[in-house]
């Protein structure tokens, strides 16, 4: 753990969110100053060379995404910063915006310059109102100090950053749904192509990037692409925030290179298992990725490492589960989430999540029939690959993954007509226990 945090350096210091702190203690806005001396294309090349991969979930190379943004067009271009952060188990952007907001503001300004945009919208989930207030106050200070607005640092570059508040919808995190929501409509995805890089916000070329992704941009400009890619394993470079929640002693956000293993994150960073109970499984990348088992804990927590182990790093939301967790209950809890959050645009997802949720409630409450297991499997497979956005696959994953790894628990529920692992942290009354 010799690693020195960069994104989250000094965030426990008083006043760490202020402009003065940022400028004096974190070399604030030096990256922007340097970026404005370069050609936009060179900036894109630098980000490409750094190997920065999107931190929003898909791990797509950021430089490439920017390169795709249509150049020859009279239309304005836009940066949309994805601060919707609604993937269960994820809370890293929350920390960055609350404790280091100027890093994001600087990242927005540099990114606008790189793709030729003059406006960045930060789409923040409605529930983060306390964060929004901090962000808006600091944006105002950045304007006053000349880091935003007209003729930034005397270079003739103009850039506005606005915060846009969502109103409670997980699906608004999907990039085209986010754009729809920004346009004042329901947060329902668009059919791709065209991709946002060609026709995004107001049908103009747009790059949608996660908060943590944009926060890395000033660091790359300031320290160089080689510095960045040297942190962590090849193709998985740069500092990374990990969100650890569930049954651990010290849940929280921890910054580490992606060479760190899941075991180190759980046992060293997060202090090990709560009450020293046995470890049962881990969800390594937010609720929508497959579970990993104890013998996979030595997997490096990188995009490629976790994928090789059969799951995904996703949004790096690690949810740790001890031996008290019933896997049927877990699937039921998450399918309640997916049923609630499905935007309803495509039938397999809208109807399928409802079916899965009801089936799981039935099995968990002890009313399940043997053929329900096949039905669960069948419905899940009728969602996977048949939907407009990645939500469908995500929704089926908790069911398919728990059925694959813990089928015996499902069978025991059906056989014994009850939950075979009723944890004491669950509700006493069935109404509140979700069935």
């Amino acid at each position, binding site marked *: 753990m010799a690693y020195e945090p960069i994104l*989250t350096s000094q*965030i*426990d210091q008083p006043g760490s969110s202020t402009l003065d702190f940022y400028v004096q203690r974190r070399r604030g806005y030096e990256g922007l100053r340097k970026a404005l001396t370069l050609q936009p294309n060179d900036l894109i090349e630098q980000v490409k060379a750094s190997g920065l991969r999107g931190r929003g979930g898909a791990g797509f190379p950021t430089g490439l995404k920017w390169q795709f943004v249509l150049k020859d067009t009279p239309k*304005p271009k836009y940066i949309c910063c994805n601060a919707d*952060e*609604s*993937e*269960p*188990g*994820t*809370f890293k*952007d*929350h*920390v960055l915006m*609350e*404790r280091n907001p100027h890093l994001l503001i600087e990242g927005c300004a540099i990114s606008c310059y790189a793709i030729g945009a003059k406006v960045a*919208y930060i789409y923040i989930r*409605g*529930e*983060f109102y*306390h964060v929004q207030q901090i962000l808006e106050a600091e944006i105002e200070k950045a304007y006053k100090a000349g880091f935003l607005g007209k003729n930034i640092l005397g270079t003739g570059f103009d850039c*506005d950053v606005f915060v*846009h*508040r*969502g*109103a*409670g*919808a*997980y699906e608004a995190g999907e990039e085209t749904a986010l754009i729809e929501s*920004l*346009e*004042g*409509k*329901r*947060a329902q995805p668009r059919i791709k192509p065209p991709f946002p890089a060609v026709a995004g916000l*107001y049908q103009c070329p747009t790059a949608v990037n996660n908060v943590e992704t944009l926060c890395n941009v000033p660091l790359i400009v300031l320290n160089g692409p080689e510095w960045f890619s040297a942190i962590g394993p090849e193709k998985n470079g740069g500092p990374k925030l990990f*969100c650890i*929640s*569930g049954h651990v002693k*010290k*849940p*929280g*956000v*921890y910054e580490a290179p992606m060479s760190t293993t899941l075991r180190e994150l759980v046992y060293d960073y997060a202090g090990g298992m709560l009450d020293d109970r046995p470890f049962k499984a881990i969800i390594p990348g937010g*609720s929508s990725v497959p579970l990993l088992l104890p013998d996979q804990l030595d997997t490096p927590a990188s995009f490629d490492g976790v994928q090789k182990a059969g799951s995904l790093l996703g949004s790096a939301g690690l*949810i740790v589960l001890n031996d008290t*967790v019933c896997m049927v209950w877990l699937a039921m*809890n*998450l399918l*309640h*989430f997916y049923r*609630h*959050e499905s935007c309803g645009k495509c039938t397999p997802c809208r109807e399928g999540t409802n079916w899965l949720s009801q089936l799981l409630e039935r099995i968990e409450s002890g009313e399940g029939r043997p053929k329900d297991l096949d039905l669960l499997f069948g419905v899940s497979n009728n969602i996977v690959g048949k939907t407009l956005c990645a939500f469908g696959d995500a929704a089926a994953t908790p069911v398919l993954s728990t059925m694959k790894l813990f089928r015996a628990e499902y069978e025991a529920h059906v056989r014994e007509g009850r939950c075979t692992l009723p944890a004491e*942290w*669950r*509700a*006493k009354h069935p*109404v*509140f226990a*979700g069935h």
Partner: protein
Amino acid sequence: MSFHPQMEYAPAKFHKSARTLAEQGPAFAYTPENQARFDENVAHYPPDQRKSAVLYALYLAQSQQGYLTASAMSHVAQQIGCSAAEVEDVVSYYTMFFTKPVGTYVLNVCRTLSCALLGAERVTEEISAALNIKPGETDPTGTFTLIEVECLGACDRAPVVMVNDDWHERLGPDQVREFIENVRTRGAAAFTGCHLHKEVKA
């Protein structure tokens, strides 16, 4: 109309709309302060894209009146320059808008995995018992509304409860009754707020 000659025409069974109309409510217009806020916000977007300000406009109306009525939605539509149906479409999609009156304190208890692992189901159960209301209901004094919500993005401080725009974190089931009494007597001062800054370990 039936879709097939042999399909029975049973509008009562098949054509039931789940759509409920919002209450008309008294005449609504922004206060001058809110009008100024709206005008400032709508300028963030290109002049031909006023609809982008609809969520903001709705938040303003909701903060002014406590919940959204048909009159309020019409006023928002007029401000934006779109139809009232378009505004209603948006209101019905997002979870943070209310079309019925709610209590002074709306207790939004996170029920998703990380919070549930640390007792969120029991928190809801205890609040429900303490106030004698079910999720979705408001207590007779109009002080509390109980709502179950999905992940709030603060899973390391589970179980999390969002109270209006404020937060209360690490609310254990055993602390629920004391918490409710505290809110009754001390109001918003009873909330922990977002205690990220005290707890983040770099």
